[in-house]
């Protein structure tokens, strides 16, 4: 062994001790570095945990208050604060409102509750600064301007607040108090900005929930209640102790025409204007009555009325609305009239469905009786409506089960006495009786069944004309068949094309056909009438004005009427022998027709005296019981063979 190795000098020991101390210090430094990292890691874990917790709260808890209460509690624990509060920002971003947590709801929130409810009164000052500067703020040494003790005692410590963001706007401000006067912790503030974004989800969700709930119960165009809200409110009103409840339906009579002619924008504007008008009348006329105005369909508004003193009050209100709706609207720089029809139903113990149905029946009645009216539901209307429903269903079956038939009423030339043609008339044999046309044609017209019936009638006539042609005693005899065209048939887009095509297919000369339309069809859309009837006439089809004298004949359009024949209404003819005025009217029509080069046919000739009179007055043709009742084809063939009465 080398002796030098064993020499343990004081110097060597001192050096070893120094080495040992360095090693010891290095170990401590390493430990300190590790501890700092561990601490940092722990902090990050805590942050991540809090963010995750806040995020799940904000995304899952349906109640904003509950989300905020949990969040305040969690952040208090995380950031070592003793008190906290939340301030909601009003939708106009002007006002702050402190959330008042329900003190009885302390399940799991006892610590937050203590923190929130007790001790510290937060001033709006700090939240206002956050709202103005849109960033978190830290107050190292607070004074009374920011917060004070609830018992008005002195209050020291520090505060910080951060915004809860809803998109790019501030939805709420959360404020935290710590007893210690803590210096600004920028890391914490940066972290709280993240928390604020997560918490914003809860507000966003509530805002969209509120919006969804609103949208589900409101009409987006007029902002009135929609059908759903109306039905809920009606059900509630019905469930309440028995009291008079009314449902008032309002239908804009001319909405469809305005919408079709001026466009949907104008239609929308009209609906909005109408809604505001009704609201105005309600505000001025309901007195103590409670009401809910809703838009439940295209142009249909409805009002639920409660707390009604007497039936008359509801009717007066309806009339006030009707009068208001008569005033013109200013739309697209022109004055538009859109009067309303109203149906009112009242009940003390009716079901919601009954009230709605009754109001509907009353509205239907108002429209039927000429629109621009108010009708109050009566039980008789219900019976009539039920009958009507039955009729409608029967009508739909009638075509399929062959219950319709076409009868022909002869038209004679009064000058020559020769058979001129026939008016085709529809007959409905239902359950062993003949249903009069006036009992079902209006309904066919309204339901649209008329279009199918019209097609069927045309088919029949085409077949029958061929039979008539064969039955004629000589080829040159001109026989014309007139058919009645309803407004709805006329409004069919392809009306003229369909008719001409059909005649072409059946190889029937158009001149064999005369279309009878009322003045109303002519006047409703005169431009269209001129175009379509003009086209049909150019092919040889004749056009007759039915029931002439009954409507509001306008001299202006008479001048340009695309017609060949005037049919004088039977009511004048049957009365002319005894009533001077009727005589004068017929005379006037005959003279007018002569001037306008129109042929005339008198309807409803029932005896020889009238027949003679009409001949003397120069009427061209006539029809009526005197000449022959409407009869099936088989029964008129003989008449055709003879060619005279």
């Amino acid at each position, binding site marked *: 062994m080398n002796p030098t190795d064993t020499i343990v000098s004081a110097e060597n020991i001192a050096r070893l001790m120094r080495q040992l101390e360095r090693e010891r210090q290095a*170990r*401590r430094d390493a*430990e300190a570095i590790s501890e700092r990292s*561990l*601490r940092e890691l*722990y902090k990050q874990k805590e942050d991540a945990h809090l963010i995750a917790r806040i995020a799940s709260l904000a995304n899952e808890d349906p109640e904003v208050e509950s989300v905020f209460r949990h969040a305040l509690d969690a952040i208090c624990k995380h950031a070592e604060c003793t008190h906290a509060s939340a301030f909601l920002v009003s939708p106009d971003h002007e006002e702050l409102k402190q959330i008042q947590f329900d003190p009885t709801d302390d399940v799991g929130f006892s610590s937050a509750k203590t923190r929130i409810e007790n001790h510290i009164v937060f001033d709006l000052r700090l939240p206002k600064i956050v709202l103005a500067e849109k960033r978190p703020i830290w107050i190292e040494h607070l004074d009374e301007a920011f917060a004070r003790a609830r018992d008005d005692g002195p209050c020291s410590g520090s505060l910080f607040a951060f915004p809860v963001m809803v998109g790019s706007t501030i939805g709420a401000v959360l404020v935290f108090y710590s007893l210690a006067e803590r210096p600004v912790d920028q890391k914490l503030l940066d972290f709280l900005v993240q928390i604020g974004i997560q918490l914003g989800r809860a507000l966003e969700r509530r805002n969209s929930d509120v919006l969804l709930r609103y949208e589900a119960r409101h009409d987006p165009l007029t902002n009135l209640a929609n059908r759903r809200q109306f039905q809920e409110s009606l059900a509630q009103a019905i469930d309440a102790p028995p009291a008079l409840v009314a449902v008032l339906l309002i239908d804009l009579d001319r909405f469809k025409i305005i919408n079709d002619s001026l466009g949907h924008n104008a239609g929308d504007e009209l609906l909005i204007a109408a809604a505001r008008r009704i609201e105005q009348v309600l505000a001025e006329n309901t007195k103590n009555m409670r009401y809910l105005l809703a838009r439940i369909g295209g142009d249909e508004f409805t009002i639920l009325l409660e707390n009604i003193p007497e039936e008359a009050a509801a009717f007066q209100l309806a009339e006030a609305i009707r009068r208001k709706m008569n005033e013109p609207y200013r739309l697209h720089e022109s004055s538009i009239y859109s009067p309303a029809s109203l149906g009112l139903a009242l009940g003390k113990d009716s079901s919601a469905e009954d009230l709605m149905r009754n109001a509907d029946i009353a509205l239907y009645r108002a429209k039927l009786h000429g629109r621009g009216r108010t009708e109050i539901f009566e039980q008789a209307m219900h019976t009539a409506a039920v009958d009507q429903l039955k009729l409608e269903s029967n009508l739909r079956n009638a075509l399929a089960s062959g219950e319709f038939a076409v009868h022909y009423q002869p038209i004679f030339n009064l000058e020559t006495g020769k058979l001129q043609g026939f008016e085709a008339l529809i007959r409905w044999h239902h359950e062993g009786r003949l249903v009069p046309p006036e009992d079902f044609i209006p309904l066919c017209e309204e339901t649209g069944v008329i279009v199918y019936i019209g097609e069927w009638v045309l088919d029949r006539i085409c077949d029958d004309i061929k039979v008539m042609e064969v039955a004629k005693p000589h080829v040159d005899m001109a026989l014309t068949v007139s058919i009645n065209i309803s407004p709805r048939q006329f409004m069919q887009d392809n009306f003229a094309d369909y008719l001409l095509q059909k005649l072409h297919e059946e190889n029937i000369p158009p001149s064999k056909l005369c279309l009878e339309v009322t003045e109303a069809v002519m006047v409703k859309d005169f431009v269209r009438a001129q175009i379509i009837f003009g086209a049909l006439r150019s092919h040889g089809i004749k056009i007759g004005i039915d029931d002439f004298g009954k409507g509001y004949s306008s001299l202006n359009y008479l001048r340009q009427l695309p017609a060949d024949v005037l049919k004088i209404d039977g009511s004048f003819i049957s009365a002319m022998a005894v009533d001077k005025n009727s005589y004068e009217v017929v005379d006037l029509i005959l003279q007018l027709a002569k001037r306008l080069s129109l042929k005339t046919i008198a309807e409803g000739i029932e005896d020889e005296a009238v027949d003679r009179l009409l001949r003397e007055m120069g009427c061209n043709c006539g029809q009526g019981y005197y000449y022959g009742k409407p009869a099936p084809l088989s029964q008129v063939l003989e008449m055709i063979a003879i060619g005279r009465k």
Partner: protein
Amino acid sequence: MKGIIFNLLEDIVRQHHGLDVWEAMLDLSGASGIYTSLGNYSDEEIFSLVGAASKILEIPPADVLRWFGRHAIAELSVRMPEMFNVHVSSRAFILNVNRAIHPEVRKLYSGADCPYFNFQDAPDGSLTMGYRSSRRLCHLAEGFIAGAAQVYCDSVESRQDKCMHHGDDHCLFVLNWPKAAASAS
């Protein structure tokens, strides 16, 4: 037991009694002597070190723990001043053991098995402190309390009414701060 306790014990023994005593304690106890603050070591090891110190220094183990606790707090106040700065008195510091000090310890040493103390204000103004732990280190706690009083330059009178070493199911201290110190908390 966390390594920091072994580190503190080594430092304090070396400071007050020199390196040789620590080496002798290791020899006598058979403890490894290799400790890092980040590590976790068996509870038995601290007990045998305390036993060895008791034999070498000829003082009862309970007094070794009291002595160690008192100095350990002073040492900790140097190493981790942030834990002490936020309080103004030993009473406040002690009352914050569960709420602030131990959570802080857990941040540094994950899985640290910190005891929970039950505090209760007595009508006479004193504070009772309950302690229950399988380690039965009530004497160390007593030393910590005295050390805290030293750190905050106040004084606390401590009386132990119950002790697990004497058959009780928990230890109970009654702590009294003379008027001047108490009002400072």
